[in-house]
């Protein structure tokens, strides 16, 4: 069974006051991860072909073509995992 661990290489908490969370997708799965996300999230803005501003279930986030996504206002890892599962699986 596919899980979010099949897509996610690591999750990095940022060290600023913003408490953003950066999700780094596995290099070999990043295109698939991006494709899955784009099937579900709403594209609000596309910048320079490399950044997508998206919303999904009242959560806005940015997705980078390099295979990284930055989420804001995520309370904990559980909430992030639930969101990622909904986006990726």
């Amino acid at each position: 069974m596919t899980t979010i661990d099949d897509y996610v290489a690591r999750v990095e908490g940022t060290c600023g006051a913003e408490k953003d969370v950066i999700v780094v997708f596995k290099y070999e799965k990043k295109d698939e991860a991006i494709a899955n996300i784009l099937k579900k999230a709403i594209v609000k803005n596309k910048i320079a072909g490399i950044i997508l501003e998206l919303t999904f279930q009242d959560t806005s986030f940015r997705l980078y073509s390099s295979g990284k996504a930055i989420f804001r206002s995520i309370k904990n890892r559980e909430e992030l995992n639930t969101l990622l599962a909904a986006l990726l699986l």
Partner: protein
Amino acid sequence: MEATDLYEKSRERIGKFINATDSSEVIFVRGTTEAINLVAYSWGLNSLGKGDEVLVSLLEHHSNIVPWEIMAKLKGFTIKYAKVNSDGTLDYDDFESKLCSKTKIACLSQVSNVTGVINDVKRIGKVAHDNGALMLVDGAQSVPHMKVDVQDLNMDFLAFSGHKMLGPTGIGVFFGKKEVLEKMPPFMGGGEMIKEVVLSPNQGQCSVSWNELPWKFEAGTPNIAGAIGLGAAVEYLEDLGMDNVLSHEKALTEYAIERMKECGKTTVYGPNSLSKKLGIIPFGVKGLSSHDVALFFDNYGIMMRSGYHCAQPLHQVFKLESSARASLYIYNTKSEVDRFIEILKEFEQL
């Protein structure tokens, strides 16, 4: 035999690079953090107590704050923090006014890892010594970029890291004045740092005597490859000439800061005067998080740091949630700065 020879030659080279009086004043550690912890745990644990004060500036990296906070809880001494001005420069009056007979050590970065501000450690060192205090200098951001002479600057301790000066990760240097190091007990126990471990006749205990400097502070198998690699990096920098390294970096920084003025939504933090800083440029883009800035540049193969840069107190002083930090070194070029500006302008359109 050959590895030991190269390891010790590397020590000698690094000693000359910082103008240590003797290579035994050069101790190999994992990096700046370990070097400062060594001072805190060896010297601090044995020399500090209630009523004593440690003076630290507010522009320090966490590695020059946290070891002292840990030690203060153990030993009950007081840490005083010297202020910084609104442009990130050190408030010398405040620092010097807080130096007194209670101060046992003054801890200061020679160059801030957030703003690139160069601190006059010689001036502070003199006042510290006049008050009977030792002077510890965090040289992580200075030794790679400028000539640092421990004798001229009269430092008691200097700490720096290999990976910031073209060397390997996991290797760094702790310099200490010989007469100070000789009075300090070892930081860690194990092989190499001992002269003898003799079992008593009744076999109830062992009497241990320490090895000579510098090995007294190098317990266990050393990072031989790392130390030799750092020596090679130092040789490379010496061949370039540290004055050339500094002037290249200053010229690029001046160019970058000038061009960043073209970017209307971008604010560069820190002092305006280039004479006060090195090639570290902290900045923010209006309405956007520093992490977005870093990820955006990442897409173009430009690496930069975002967040607090392990200097949360300084960001609190600046009232900043975080900052992005562009850093320049000898391998950077003017055309790379142009590319950086081009991307920054694109990013401002977000």
